[in-house]
């Protein structure tokens, strides 16, 4: 099947408006006869569920947590971008569009990104109307801050809890519709398959995580807003339950999976401290507004720090290597995430890592504390040269801005970041790849939609900070409600979809068979044993820096691990009870397939772009020496993989990317 991205014709700035003017609509009376299933209740799924219910459709929403409010969007910290230009610093829809395409290293679809930039301003209006308490200035108007990879301040925020506030906004919109009976909410339910009838997605099979009951649910369309697959690395900043299962089942039923190798390794996370670790914790990118990243220049200082005979604050200014400011003077500490992560790895690989494992760099707030302290002393008419006073005043300012993040850090690491620099290292955070969708956000399965992080569409090979929240809400509030209507207008005479059909029965039986296998298999090793092994292979060979040898080995090792898993996995208990090990087994089984496709995609893409860094594709000389080198002639396409059984048999389909409004060039943050 040839890929058709269905991008509307016409100039980029008119595409979305013209599209909306010409699609088919469903009248309110008919909407009452149409059912929509939404899986996942994060920013994308939650906002879509609320909006579709409000329009009049009957929505069934599903989440594996005990309440929709707990979806992992809640953990997003720093902020949400919008081209409001409240600061008058030159922002515009075009500039947000441009920054996002450039930040994504020219591997995203122009039309989708432009639409995202276009609706971004509405998101802020909408959220304020819902009572989302964004940060404000003393005049009562909204405050902004700056994020990586851009030269304007367009990020709206609510301290370090922006994701929480936006998700609670979407949750409140859902609550209104649940109260009206327009959304039927299924908490603690996990989707285990998509059901297709006559080629169209018409329902799902779920497992009730409390009782183990397998259920059939039908609808006229199915929407997946099930997040990313970062947990394929075992250790990531994702929640423990975040998984690829819904997206992977969709893939197995015919949805192409796009660019699986595009993963964002976030530069500022708390470093790994030991084998016991179950997850990694992010320290928001917003900290790079004020924190300066450095390692010592001299190896003897590095060793003294590791031996704890020297404190970082005692290293003289001239003996510090502020390597981001040195290498990228124009953007400094605010280079995009992929660039910042690679630069940290480069210094640590060269031996300058500052903790016991050699995998950490400093994020230092001392200059910011002094700068803010002096400013406060000046404003209050106090002595600007009193170091102790300046420090105290400065710490107060920093506490107001980032207090909750500093507290999180202190609880985990047991060090006080107001007085000693934080230690940070890159960690897996977000996946730009995902289920392939067209301009309508529909997958290659008719009637099956995919929104938010679960799809691939807007961030190319690298996502800019504060853009995930923007995309999730744009898809759910403002894009899907139009595009799905156009599809559902053909279903006004269909009537209810029966679950008493062979298609539902077959899908249910397959699900039951797999669950029975797990609880009856007499294996030796727990699910986590395999998940940790998979994570190690992924991190070491398909992580921040990739080469042909490592990727080839990874493919073979994952295949072998998968075979061992199916022989030797041990799951206690039964299906008819709350059984977390059983739920985990199903998720890890899917990660073991995705992991291989991920490595295969990375092997296929013989260029460096965004988060995908191939050691054999770097600039060899000139000002950009050592930086990632794209190959636009051969790889300016979306790699969409079709399922054919084993991941090694997956078939590649290419969606050629066209850049009509932005000139393709080497990304420079110098």
């Amino acid at each position: 099947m040839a890929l058709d991205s269905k991008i509307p014709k016409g100039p980029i700035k008119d595409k979305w408006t013209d599209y909306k003017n010409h699609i088919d609509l469903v009248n309110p009376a008919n909407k009452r006869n149409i059912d929509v299933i939404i899986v996942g209740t994060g920013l994308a799924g939650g906002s879509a569920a609320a909006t579709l219910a409000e329009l009049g459709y009957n929505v069934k929403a599903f989440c594996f947590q005990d309440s929709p409010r707990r979806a992992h969007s809640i953990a997003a910290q720093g902020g949400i971008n919008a081209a409001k230009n409240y600061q008058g610093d030159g922002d515009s829809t075009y500039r947000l569009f441009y920054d996002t395409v450039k930040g994504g290293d020219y591997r995203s679809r122009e039309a989708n990104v432009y639409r995202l930039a276009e609706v971004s301003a509405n998101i802020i209006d909408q959220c304020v109307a819902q009572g989302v308490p964004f940060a404000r200035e003393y005049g009562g108007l909204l405050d902004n801050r700056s994020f990586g990879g851009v030269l304007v301040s367009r990020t709206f925020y609510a301290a370090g809890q922006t994701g929480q506030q936006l998700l609670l906004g979407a949750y409140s919109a859902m609550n209104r519709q649940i109260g009206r009976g327009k959304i039927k909410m299924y908490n603690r339910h996990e989707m285990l398959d998509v059901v297709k009838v006559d080629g169209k997605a018409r329902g799902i099979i779920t497992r009730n995580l409390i009782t183990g009951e397998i259920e059939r649910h039908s609808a006229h369309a199915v929407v997946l807003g099930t997040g990313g697959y970062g947990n394929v690395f075992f250790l990531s900043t994702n929640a423990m339950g975040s998984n690829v299962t819904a997206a992977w089942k969709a893939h197995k039923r015919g949805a192409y999976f796009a660019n699986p190798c595009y993963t964002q390794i976030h530069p500022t996370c708390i470093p790994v401290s030991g084998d016991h670790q179950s997850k990694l914790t992010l320290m928001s990118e917003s900290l790079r507004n004020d924190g300066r990243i450095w390692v010592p220049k001299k190896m003897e200082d590095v060793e003294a720090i590791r031996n704890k005979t020297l404190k970082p604050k005692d290293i003289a200014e001239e003996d510090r290597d502020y390597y981001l400011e040195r290498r990228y003077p124009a953007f400094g500490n605010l280079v995009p995430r992929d660039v910042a992560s690679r630069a940290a790895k480069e210094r640590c690989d060269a031996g300058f890592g500052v903790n016991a494992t050699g995998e950490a760099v400093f994020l230092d707030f001392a200059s910011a504390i002094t700068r803010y302290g002096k400013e406060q002393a000046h404003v209050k008419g106090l002595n600007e040269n009193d170091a102790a006073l300046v420090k105290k005043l400065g710490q107060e300012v920093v506490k107001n801005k980032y207090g909750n993040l500093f507290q999180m850090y202190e609880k985990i690491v047991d060090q006080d970041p107001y007085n000693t620099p934080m230690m940070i290292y890159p960690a897996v955070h977000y996946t730009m790849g995902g289920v392939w969708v067209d301009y309508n956000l529909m997958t290659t399965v008719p009637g099956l939609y995919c929104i938010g992080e679960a799809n691939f569409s807007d961030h190319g090979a690298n996502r800019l900070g504060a853009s995930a929240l923007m995309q999730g809400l744009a898809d759910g509030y403002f894009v899907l409600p139009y595009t799905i209507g156009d599809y559902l207008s053909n279903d006004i005479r269909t009537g209810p979809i029966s679950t008493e059909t062979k298609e539902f029965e077959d899908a249910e039986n397959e699900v039951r068979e797999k669950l029975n296998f797990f609880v009856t298999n007499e294996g030796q090793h727990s699910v986590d044993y395999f998940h940790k092994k998979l994570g190690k292979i992924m991190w070491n060979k398909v992580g921040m820096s990739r080469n042909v040898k490592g990727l080839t080995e990874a493919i073979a090792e994952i295949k072998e691990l998968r075979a061992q898993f199916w022989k030797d996995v041990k799951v206690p208990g039964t299906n008819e009870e709350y059984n977390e090990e059983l739920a985990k087994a199903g998720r890890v089984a899917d990660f073991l397939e995705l992991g291989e496709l991920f490595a295969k995609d990375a092997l296929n893409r013989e260029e460096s772009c965004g988060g995908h860094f191939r050691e054999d594709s770097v600039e060899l000389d000139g000002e950009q020496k050592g930086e990632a080198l794209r190959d636009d002639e051969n790889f300016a396409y979306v790699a969409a993989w079709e399922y054919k059984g084993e991941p090694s048999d997956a078939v590649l389909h290419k969606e050629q990317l066209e850049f009509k409004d932005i000139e393709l060039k080497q990304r420079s943050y110098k």
Partner: protein
Amino acid sequence: MNLTLKIWRQKNASDKGKMVDYKVNDISPDMSFLEMLDVLNEQLVNNDESPVAFDHDCREGICGMCSLYINGEAHGPDRGITTCQLHMRMFKDGDTITIEPFRATAFPVVKDLIVDRSSFDRIQHAGGFISVNTSGNTIDANAIPVNKHDADKAFEAATCIGCGACVASCKNSSAMLFVGAKVSQFALLPQGQVEATDRVLNMVKQMDEEGFGNCTNTGACEVECPKGISLENIARMNREYLAASIKG
């Protein structure tokens, strides 16, 4: 360090349940409390025993899913954190640690340490929202300035993670800190004024129907709240409720 754990085991909602003793060894002080339970569960799975069921997800203190009552305190001995942020450095070698679920009539036990907190959701369905359509066609976000003091207070109330520690800590199993926080968030913002009367009446009615107790101003909820939600919010809700009742 080596520890003895006394853990509440209950097969399902209808089982009677009991405390069971377990030993875990070689626990690192850098582990989080839940990572210590992971170690126990790995041990149980390897010995063909049933692992301890507990709720958890983000493991960074924001989703509100984790909910343990540790040594007689919701989220354990540390302050301003959830169970997943509690680290083993708060304990010492040889300690015995008692772990129970959050107990309340309105939070029935599902299994072991997991409770059903859907009563919180139902209170929100009754009025925890502003009735605005999500079309995006509202007024510009800066059209109504909001006093920074009020905006900050609204934000502080809105940081509630809905974990239920307030209920578990209250001798009356009252949910007034939770409900007070939501009522306050909207009461402090101009956008929330239009429906203020109905909101507080409906949410309080639902809270009572769910079987939560009343507030007697002990303040344990505020002490144990991982997000430091202030008792002020209960006072504000009481004022809102009184005003709404008079308006009728």
